[in-house]
């Protein structure tokens, strides 16, 4: 009903499109006024083999190798993957498992580079200044080679989205400068300080997908960024189809699907991509990185990281080499003692709490937060029973019914949970944030999703095993039948000595069965 009213109001032009649900947060943008500083080069950089969504990379270097900044050190395996590059020049000192920002606490094979301090760049990639006259597929290959992945936090390989598909022409390119997570200010500062470079990147994207219309979306708590972008836009040639949209601040506006709905009034159908409705959405930081990759020929070796939190003495925005241990960044900002502090990788709403600060900055590190134990405790108090107040449903930007879903996950009614569209949950955390009973709803959904994925994997495995088992059974049956048939033939011709036959036959068949394929392996012995 309200949805209908809203649609009606939108049709009449009384109301701008806005995604359902959503909440207002305390933004805590402590570092909003802090200019981007360079964090320098750490003596040892740790580069995990997988920093994107998709297939892990494999190492191309060995211990003792000298590498240059920007040199590819791990190559991608498979389509959904981008390579890893050395983020400074130096020597490979070890390749072993190291902790990463993952809730399981498991490690990831990583390459350790000892910096030589010279920071010599690998300049094998030619800058493409004349990109307007370059074929989009070449630029796309450049984006892949340079290791670009969504720097907003999702780290989806960027090149995959930058494609021209005749069936799904991109009409609108959306530049996502929403940054709706509390504390984080990387995109904000980037837009204030490097608006022109971002616009270059956007122009490259629009050229690559063949679109002439673009929207730059910024929330109204970043007016300085909007002004800076507007100024840069007026000074830029050839970007007439682009305009800036300042949206009222609401979480999770920066989520791709929600933003697309707010700006275009269209929903990305379940199981489809934005490109299927003619939209491409890119994060501000990724756009800037694309510009550097094309115009400067630089691979992705650094990113901007907000370092903040209520327990951090000096919040800042740092330009950090990928692979820098975050403990050194905290030390730089005046935090050495982690005894009553919890470290969060990413924003407080969707980031991971880390078990310890000894992990490296990776491509997805939009921020690292030092939150006081008190702040964490306030968010994770004892779970009370659900009183079905419905605040979670009101807050849900995907129009799910979180409390019912959580009940289903908790009681392992996973099929029903899928039926309730569990997988449409974007894990934004709005439901948990508003829950008066402090129910960790997102945690239940993650549990449910994990269990369903597990069940699916087991299902596939079981099906394959069943087929192999049935195949084996039929083969044995067939072979037994053949053998019986042969034996009866043998019995007819060599009536006196039937017993000797099977053994020699088995021996004969095993001799020929030297192939390694299981289907043609030796006949199993008959049970006597």
């Amino acid at each position: 009903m309200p949805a209908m009213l809203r649609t009606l109001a939108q049709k009449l032009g009384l109301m701008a499109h806005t995604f359902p649900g959503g909440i207002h947060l305390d933004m805590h943008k402590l570092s909003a006024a802090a200019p981007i500083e360079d964090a320098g080069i750490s003596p040892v950089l740790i580069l995990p083999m997988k920093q994107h969504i998709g297939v892990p990379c494999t190492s191309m270097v060995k211990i003792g190798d000298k590498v240059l900044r920007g040199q590819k050190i791990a190559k991608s395996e498979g389509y959904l993957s981008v390579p890893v590059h050395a983020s400074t020049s130096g020597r490979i000192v070890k390749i072993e498992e190291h902790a990463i920002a993952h809730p399981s606490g498991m490690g990831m094979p990583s390459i350790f580079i000892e910096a030589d301090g010279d920071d010599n760049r690998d300049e094998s990639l030619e800058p493409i200044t004349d990109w307007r006259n370059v074929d989009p597929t070449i630029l796309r290959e450049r984006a892949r080679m340079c290791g670009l992945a969504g720097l907003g936090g999702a780290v989806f390989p960027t090149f995959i989205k930058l494609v021209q598909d005749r069936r799904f022409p991109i009409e609108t390119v959306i530049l996502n400068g929403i940054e709706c997570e509390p504390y984080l200010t990387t995109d904000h500062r980037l837009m204030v300080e490097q608006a022109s470079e971002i616009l270059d990147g956007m122009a490259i994207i629009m050229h690559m997908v063949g679109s002439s219309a673009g929207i730059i979306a910024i929330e109204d708590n970043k007016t300085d960024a909007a002004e800076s972008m507007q100024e840069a836009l007026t000074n830029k040639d050839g970007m007439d189809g682009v305009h800036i949209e300042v949206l009222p601040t609401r979480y999770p506006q920066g989520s791709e699907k929600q933003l697309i709905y707010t700006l275009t009034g269209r929903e990305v159908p379940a199981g489809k991509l934005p490109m299927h409705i003619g939209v491409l959405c890119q994060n501000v930081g990724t756009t800037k990185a694309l510009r550097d990759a094309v115009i400067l020929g630089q691979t992705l070796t650094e990113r901007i990281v907000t370092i903040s939190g209520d327990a951090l003495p000096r919040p800042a925005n740092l330009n950090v080499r990928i692979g820098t241990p975050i403990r050194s960044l905290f030390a730089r900002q005046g935090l050495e003692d982690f005894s009553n502090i919890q470290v969060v990788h990413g924003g407080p709403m969707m980031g991971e709490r880390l078990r310890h600060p000894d992990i490296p900055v990776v491509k997805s590190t939009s921020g690292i937060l030092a939150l006081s134990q008190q702040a964490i405790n306030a968010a994770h108090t004892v779970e009370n029973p659900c009183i079905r107040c419905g605040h979670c449903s009101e807050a849900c930007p995907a129009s799910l019914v979180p409390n019912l879903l959580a009940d289903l996950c908790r009681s392992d009614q996973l099929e029903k949970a899928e039926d309730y569209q569990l997988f449409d949950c974007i894990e934004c955390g709005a439901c948990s944030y508003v829950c008066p009973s402090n129910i960790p709803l997102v945690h239940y959904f993650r549990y449910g999703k994990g269990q369903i994925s597990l069940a699916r994997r087991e299902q596939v495995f079981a099906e394959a095993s069943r087929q192999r088992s049935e195949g084996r059974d039929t083969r044995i049956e067939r072979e037994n039948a053949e053998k019986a048939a042969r034996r009866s033939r043998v019995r007819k011709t060599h009536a006196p000595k039937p017993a000797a036959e099977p053994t020699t036959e088995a021996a004969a068949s095993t001799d020929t069965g030297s192939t390694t394929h299981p289907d043609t392996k030796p006949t199993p012995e008959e049970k006597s």
Partner: protein
Amino acid sequence: MESMNGLIYALASLGAFALCAGIVLAIAQKIFHIEGDPMIDNVDALLPQTQCGQCGYPGCKPYATAVAGGEAEVNHCVPGGERTMLQIADLMGVEPKELEQEASAPMLAFVREDECIGCTLCIKACPVDAIIGAPKQYHTIIADHCTGCTLCVEPCPVDCIDMLVKPELIEHWAWPLPDTKRSQLGHERREQHAGHA
């Protein structure tokens, strides 16, 4: 005589009526006749297909047949664990039963190749054709196909097959349920409060 007539009427009408009902049901039986027991496949679909025989039946399908026929309890599948048991109980509409044996962590069989004499006995024992090799050559177990049923361990004459815990992949890691650990935190928090006060 009156009562005699009444009795005859009663018996005759009841008999005639019963006959009619019987004929109708006989026809219906023809129309709604079903082949086999469709529940066997339904149960089989829930089983993990390890073909391990720990249930006491030679494989998953025979166990499914026994369960569907009401001959076997629902709690014999060890590798399936509690979830499989609950699903089968749910499907069969019976009360869930305690598992007799806890499911262990997923295992993989591994051949120590330098000790393998190439006897092919394990190949013959494997219910899912997950072992490859030829006589007098090393045998190898395809890890992706191994169900961890342990049936190959026994036949090996030189005991060169180990059962190893299946390594957990970071991509396959799943969040556990929140409750217990959260209440721990709540406990810590209460203590902390008490400490402050």
